[in-house]
């Protein structure tokens, strides 16, 4: 366990955290402003990944593929909002959970029908392959650095929009008091559609970036979605800042845990026991963290309510 290795895993954790943030930001705003539980958010992540694979292959150009995938996810997201989700805004959370659960089944099967149940191969252009040298002497994939850069710039842009623009002010106001914003004469429907659209685009972005690293397959959205829930619970509903902090924490804890818990345990208890307990504990780590945060702050760290 060298420092170089630790730093590398730390970077991985940050990179994963940044992707979690992209998912969490959209979801927490939808939860906070529209008071709507949307399980199908993971499906948009999956759609982004699949569209990127298909459109990059079709156009032969990485940038075109990415841009079209983003656009496609945005459009599909808005279509879903208009067709299915509009009917659910005034329903209770149980109904929303069940209906969006049905949507997940639909999207997973649809994707299976078109592309099959196996994993798809997402290729990278040559300039994104390869490694760079870190100051620690080890080498780190260029692509992961790119993800970090894209993710952080998106975070900064979001921060700017939410805290420094009128739209952002409406979003923040809506997150803490929806009825009041409506009463002030703001076009709530338009606001909802915009918020949802932005969330969908962010999810699609996370998905298409995830493609080359993680498997592009049916059900990929739900695996990350549940971790996104953990992020939002820790960060607090409706807070983009909370989503960022929560995402970084979850990303780093999860990655470091998986990498180092087993060797750490092995130095304390017997290696065979560590062999069994290590991975088990590592996979439970972020949930235990969530439980601890909840015990102290039931509404999350930065709740807007």
């Amino acid at each position, binding site marked *: 366990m060298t420092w170089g290795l630790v730093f590398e895993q730390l970077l991985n954790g940050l990179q994963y955290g940044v992707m979690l943030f992209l998912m969490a930001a959209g979801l927490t705003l939808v*939860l906070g402003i529209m*008071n709507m*539980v949307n399980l199908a958010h993971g499906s948009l992540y999956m759609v982004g990944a699949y569209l990127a694979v298909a459109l990059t292959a079709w156009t032969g150009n990485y940038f075109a593929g990415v841009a079209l995938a983003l656009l496609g996810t945005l459009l599909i997201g808005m279509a879903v909002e208009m067709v*299915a989700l509009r*009917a*659910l805004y005034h*329903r209770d*959370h*149980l*109904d929303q*959970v*069940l*209906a969006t*659960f*049905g*949507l*997940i*089944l*639909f*999207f*997973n*099967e*649809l994707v*299976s*029908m078109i592309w099959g149940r196996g994993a798809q191969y997402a290729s990278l252009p040559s300039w994104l392959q390869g490694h760079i040298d870190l100051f620690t002497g080890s080498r780190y994939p260029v692509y992961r650095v790119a993800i970090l850069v894209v993710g952080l710039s998106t975070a900064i842009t979001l921060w700017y929009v939410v805290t420094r623009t009128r739209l952002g002010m409406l979003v923040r106001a809506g997150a803490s008091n929806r009825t009041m914003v409506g009463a002030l004469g703001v076009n709530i429907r338009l606001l909802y559609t915009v918020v949802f659209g932005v969330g969908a685009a962010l999810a699609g972005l996370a998905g298409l970036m995830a493609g080359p690293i993680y498997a592009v397959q049916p059900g990929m959205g*739900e695996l990350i979605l*549940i971790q996104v*829930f*953990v992020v*939002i*619970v820790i960060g607090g*509903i409706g807070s983009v800042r909370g989503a960022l902090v929560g995402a970084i924490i979850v990303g780093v804890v999860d990655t470091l845990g998986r990498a180092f818990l087993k060797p750490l345990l092995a130095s304390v208890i017997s290696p065979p026991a560590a062999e*069994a307990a290590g*991975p*088990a504990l590592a*996979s*439970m780590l972020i*949930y*235990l963290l*969530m*439980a601890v945060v*909840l*015990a102290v702050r*039931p*509404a*999350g760290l930065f709740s807007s309510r």
Partner: protein
Amino acid sequence: MKLRLVLWGLGIALLVALPPLAIALGQTYYIDLVRRVLILSIAAISLNLILGYGGLVSFGHAAYLGIGAYSAGIMAFYGVSSGWLQWPLAVGASALVAAAIGAVSIRTSGIYFIMITLAFTQMLYYLGISLAEFGGDDGMRLKARSQFSGLIDLGNPVAFYYLALALMLLSVFLVYRIVNSRFGMVLRAAKSNDPRTRAIGFSPYFYRLAAFVLAGAMCGLAGALYANHTNYITPGLMSWQQSGDLMFMVILGGMASTAGPVIGTFALLVIEEVLKGWTEYWQVVLGPLLVLSVVFFKRGLAGMFYKPDA
């Protein structure tokens, strides 16, 4: 009220008559199919207690199916195949885990509660996958069926069927008594109007937690039964998809009604069987069907016959 009793009598009579009928018609497959429905009904009945009557949207109820099943499986793995030991452990372990998860989760409400129960169940799912000893991702076979000192042979499909039927009816009766008792009234009151319930002097937390534990325990029993039914135990039993299925069984049948969960389980599993017969991609049809049922069909099937309990 009379109508209800008549319908119940009819239903029970049909269920009792099914095995001999199936055998006579040479369609023994139905004994297995309905037995699966009966076992999952127990899980749905337990969820109805906290979801339908208690208003706790627990998206992690399948966890207890898994804990119950793995309790039986792990004990069998280590050579303990006595049902007298396995099944109480399944129930006890589920109750314990429910107490732990409930203690933390019930302090929250609304969206948080949904996400948290989902997250904890996912945690157990990952735990199940990581236990390579017990098959990990692929799961494991049940080494031997639960033995009950020769009183009943679970290897006999018909005997097992009648046991499942008896336990299902017992569950229905238990939940019926509970929801109409003092305890049940507080639970239902807290769902109906939480501030009012506090104002008259009840602290809903403890009642909800107790209901949560009871529901978990009952679902654990269903899990032990299920392990014996399928002879195979996988972490998929604890997946969020399974939790979603359980919720639909409760909703489709009609929440907060005695027969609802049973009807709902029948409905969902029958629809699945039919759809599976049509196409390999049956979920592409089921998904939108479920969405439509939520949007348009709020009161569930039981609501068509009579108004559910308040």
